[in-house]
C-alpha cells in the first residue's frame, strides 16, 4: 500500500469511527502529520455535531392546554378509583373462591357422621393455633394448609344439615360477604383480626349459626 492510498484508507477509518481506531490506523497517525491533523479535525467536528444536535428540550415543551390538563387529572382520578375498587373487592372475591375450591377438594368431609371427641377437635385446633368453643357437634376436623398457614377445616352437624367451617386466622375480612359457587352457598365473616367462612350445600347459612361460630373463635 503506497502512502497516498494508505492515507485514504486511514481517513475513511477515521471518518467512520474516530473514537475506535485500529492499532494500524493509530500507528499511521503517529507518523503522518496530515492524517493526524485530519483525525484531530474529525474529533473537533464531532464535538460540533454533538453540540448542534443537543437542543434544549424545554424549548420544545409547550404547556398543556387547560382542557388537556383537566382530562389528564380526570384520567388519574378515574384510574385511582378503578384500581382502588379492584384492590378492595378482588381479594375478598378471591378468598371466597379459594375457600370453595378447598372445600370441593375435600368433598368427602360432608359425608362424615361420627361426632369427634373434644380431644380430637382440640388437637386439630391446637395444631392450627386457634381456639374454638362451640356447642355444635363436629364430625370432621383437619388442619389444612391454606395461604401458607394451617387453618382448621371443620364440618359441624346442624338442624339444617352439615356445614363447613373454616377458621381463617390470617385472612383479614373487613365486611360480611355472601357467596355462592359450585353448588355451595356460604358467608365470609370478620372475626377479630381474621375471618371465618361458613358454607353449606343447600340454602343460605342461617344467621344464628354464623353468629355462633364467630362468637366461639379466639385467635
Amino acid at each position, binding site marked *: 500500500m503506497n502512502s497516498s492510498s494508505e492515507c*485514504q484508507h486511514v*481517513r*475513511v*477509518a477515521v*471518518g*467512520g*469511527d474516530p473514537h*475506535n481506531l485500529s492499532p494500524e490506523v493509530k500507528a499511521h497517525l503517529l507518523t503522518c502529520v496530515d492524517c493526524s491533523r*485530519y483525525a484531530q*479535525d*474529525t474529533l*473537533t*467536528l*464531532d464535538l*460540533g*455535531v*454533538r*453540540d*448542534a*444536535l*443537543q*437542543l434544549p428540550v424545554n*424549548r*420544545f415543551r409547550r404547556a398543556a392546554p387547560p382542557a388537556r390538563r383537566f382530562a389528564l387529572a380526570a384520567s388519574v382520578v378515574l384510574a385511582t378509583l378503578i384500581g382502588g375498587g379492584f384492590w378492595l373487592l378482588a381479594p375478598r372475591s378471591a378468598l371466597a373462591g379459594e375457600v370453595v375450591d378447598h372445600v370441593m377438594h375435600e368433598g368427602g368431609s360432608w359425608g362424615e357422621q361420627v361426632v369427634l371427641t373434644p380431644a380430637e377437635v382440640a388437637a386439630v385446633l391446637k395444631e392450627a393455633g386457634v381456639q374454638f368453643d362451640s356447642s355444635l357437634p363436629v364430625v370432621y376436623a383437619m388442619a389444612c394448609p391454606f395461604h401458607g398457614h394451617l387453618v382448621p377445616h371443620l364440618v359441624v352437624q346442624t338442624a339444617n344439615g352439615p356445614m363447613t367451617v373454616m377458621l381463617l386466622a390470617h385472612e383479614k375480612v373487613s365486611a360480611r360477604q355472601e357467596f355462592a359457587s359450585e353448588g355451595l352457598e356460604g358467608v365470609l365473616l370478620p372475626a377479630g383480626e381474621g375471618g371465618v367462612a361458613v358454607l353449606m350445600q343447600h340454602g343460605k347459612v342461617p344467621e344464628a349459626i354464623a353468629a355462633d361460630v364467630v362468637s366461639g373463635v379466639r385467635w
Partner: protein
Amino acid sequence: ARPWLFTIGRREHARLYERKRLPTVDVDEASVLADPALASDGDARLDDLRRAILQLPDEYREPLVMQVLGGLSTTEIAAELKLTQPAVLTRLFRARNRLRVIYGLEPAEDAE
C-alpha cells in the same frame, strides 16, 4: 440496554408520525423564520452545521446521530439498521465528509 432503548425510541417515534399528520416546514424556511428547533445559541457555525445535518440524506444522518448523540457502536448501528458494519462505516465517513466542508475543513477523497 442502550440499543434496546434506541430501538424503542425509533419505533415509537415512527409510530407517532404514522398516526399524526404534523405540519411540516422546509428546513430553509424554518431557519429563516427562526424556528426554535433550529435556533442557534448565537454560534453561526453551529447553526450552519445543524442545518447541514438536517439536510443530510437519512441514510447518512441516522447512523451519525446514533453514533455521536446516542453513543452506539458501529456494530450496534449495523444491527439496528440491518446493514453490514463496513456499510455503516462508509455512511459515517461520508456523512462526516459532507459536514467537514460546512465546518470549514478540507474533505477527504471519496470515491462516492
